[in-house]
């Protein structure tokens, strides 16, 4: 876990203690129309709209020089779920079956069935198989069934070119970076969850401790230091590919060059930047 994440976590635990007081104070303050702290907020006013224009202070990193993208080769994924485990650990995601920055779906066509049977690691039978919501496993329910076709599909934030979540955020707390990543300013998010509604892919989750929305950042704290996202790093079969589209030699550029790719729900107009190989029409 990075220093920045630790800071966020400490901030989170402080918030737990102050939560009730702050909420009540906030409701009272807003209702009465009191402009407590408005000076600070006005200062923020100048930066919020232009959040995407002000580059973060990361040593040796220029976000104008990169264009990140993600590839998923579903034909390679074996459903080991190490990516899910790594993501939760790396990013301090709530340890239960209802909050994920990434997950894996299993599609199984049985003989004679027209529709796929779909489940993820959050399915009750899978949790029973793993023994805990904090451990991830696909159970063996199809052991005796006649399976015609089956595959796994890793899911994560699509970091869309036209993100509906950014469009609906009332404060600009969620924004798009120059290098193509959609991030959330946790210190500015009011926790209305409009973005959770607007995301067609269900990738946004709510952190009830901090009262803010959370989601995959493609491990922005890692990629800006030249590292791979945690899920890509731990994938044993290279089903997850990440890189810079501005670099023709990067794994993602090769992935896009060498494969016929598709994206999820193109009809939404969001223009996702996670590209898939090996999925079929049933994938939702």
């Amino acid at each position, binding site marked *: 876990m990075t220093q920045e994440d630790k800071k966020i976590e400490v901030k989170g635990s402080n918030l737990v203690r102050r939560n009730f007081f*702050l909420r009540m104070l906030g409701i009272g303050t807003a209702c009465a129309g009191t402009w407590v702290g408005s000076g600070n*907020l006005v200062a923020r006013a100048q930066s919020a709209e232009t959040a995407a224009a002000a580059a973060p202070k990361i040593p040796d990193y220029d976000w104008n020089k990169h264009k990140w993208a993600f590839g998923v080769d579903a034909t390679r994924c074996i459903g080991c779920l190490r990516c899910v485990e790594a993501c939760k650990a790396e990013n301090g995601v709530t340890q239960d079956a209802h909050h994920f920055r990434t997950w894996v779906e299993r599609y199984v066509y049985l003989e004679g069935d027209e529709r796929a049977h779909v489940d993820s690691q959050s399915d009750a039978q899978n949790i029973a198989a793993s023994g805990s919501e904090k451990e991830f496993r696909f159970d063996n329910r199809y052991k005796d069934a006649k399976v015609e076709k089956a595959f796994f599909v890793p899911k994560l934030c699509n970091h869309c070119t036209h993100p509906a979540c950014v469009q609906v955020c*009332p404060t600009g707390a969620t924004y798009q970076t120059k290098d193509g990543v959609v991030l959330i300013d946790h210190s500015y998010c009011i*926790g209305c969850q409009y973005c959770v509604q*607007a995301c067609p*892919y269900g990738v946004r*989750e709510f952190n*009830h401790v901090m009262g803010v929305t959370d989601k995959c950042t493609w491990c922005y704290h890692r990629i800006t230091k030249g590292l791979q996202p945690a899920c890509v790093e731990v994938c044993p079969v290279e089903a997850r590919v990440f890189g810079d589209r501005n670099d023709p030699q990067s794994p993602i550029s090769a992935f896009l060059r060498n494969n016929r790719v598709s994206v999820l729900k193109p009809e939404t107009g969001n223009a996702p930047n996670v590209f898939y190989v090996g999925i079929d029409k049933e994938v939702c």
Partner: protein
Amino acid sequence: MIGTMAQAAPYVGYVYPNETDIPWSVLIVIYPYITGLVAGAFIVSSLFHVFGMAQYKPVARFALLTAVSFMFFVPMPLLLHLGNPQRAFNAVLTPHWTSAMAAFSYVAGFYISLLLLEIWFAFRADIVALSKTTQGPLGTVYRLMTLGSDDVSPRALALDHKFATVLAMIGIPAAGGLHGYVGFLFGSVKAREWWSSDLMPIIFLLSAIVSGIGLLIVLYVVYSRIRKVPVDQACMKGLARTMWAFLLVVLVIEGLELLEMFYKRLEGIDMVQRLIEGPIRYGMMIQWGGSLIVLALLTVLIVFRVEGKALVRGLVISGVGMMIAVLAMRWNVVIGGQELSKTMKGLLVYYPEILSHEGLVAVAIVFTCPFVVLWLITRFLSPWEPEPS
């Protein structure tokens, strides 16, 4: 409990893992509901102030006070819902203008200012009179409320009337905008199949007006009982016709929307059908059953020219019926939309909490507040015409 997740929503089929934490609770059902009551009450007052329909005069000023009392509490469910309500002003001071939600404070702020101004002009003569006859701290309040203007000459009163009319004229599109905006908030979410409809703003607006008229009928009858004065028959007949007309239009539009949806049979329609037959089954029965019963009752009252106590009873039943039916409609939209998974392969079931800050008790408190405030305001500023002796 604050800071923890509500009970995870049970589901059937396949839903995205994060969807089991339902984002918008019953508080967001009550938010468009209260906003709608405001719009409806305001429209009735405008029928008198703008269109000069004299039969609405007995309730015109009361309707304004009703609208403002409910408007005060429109932000309440939203603030209770926010994860960080202390940052609510972020959306006001640094609005992100591509978001419909960023407009909320401005739309609501404009509308409440308009209402307060209109009330001031409509009640100015009363305020001046009260400032001269009331002693003590309350008298000081009345004197402050005159804003130094104690001219009640016929010319000044005519000017008041003119201002009130102009404000009411601005208020009609503002009320339409306020509630159409709420419809847009839902209708523009393309990720939610059940919300994403171009008709959402108009359906929200029309159903809002129907529920607001229903509320006004009920409140007017209750207040008349308390004041021990007869209910104005002409006013009641007018309200019956207005409610009937708006209800008919909203039912036709909602019916056409459902018909189109099932006729087109786009991908995922099976799951929409299962939503209607499943999680929102009772909600749909109350919404549609209630609306049709009220429509039939109003038709009988109008066609057979029912008068007297029977008319009042019939209208109170209609008013309560419409308030319940529209509340069910809000539930069906807000909760139903979230119960239909974005995968279109599964359904969730939302169970409201009871005691949490997003629970049913909180909703009951939020919904009781406008009634209490209205009672206090009417004690402070009587909207009723003096009884002819």
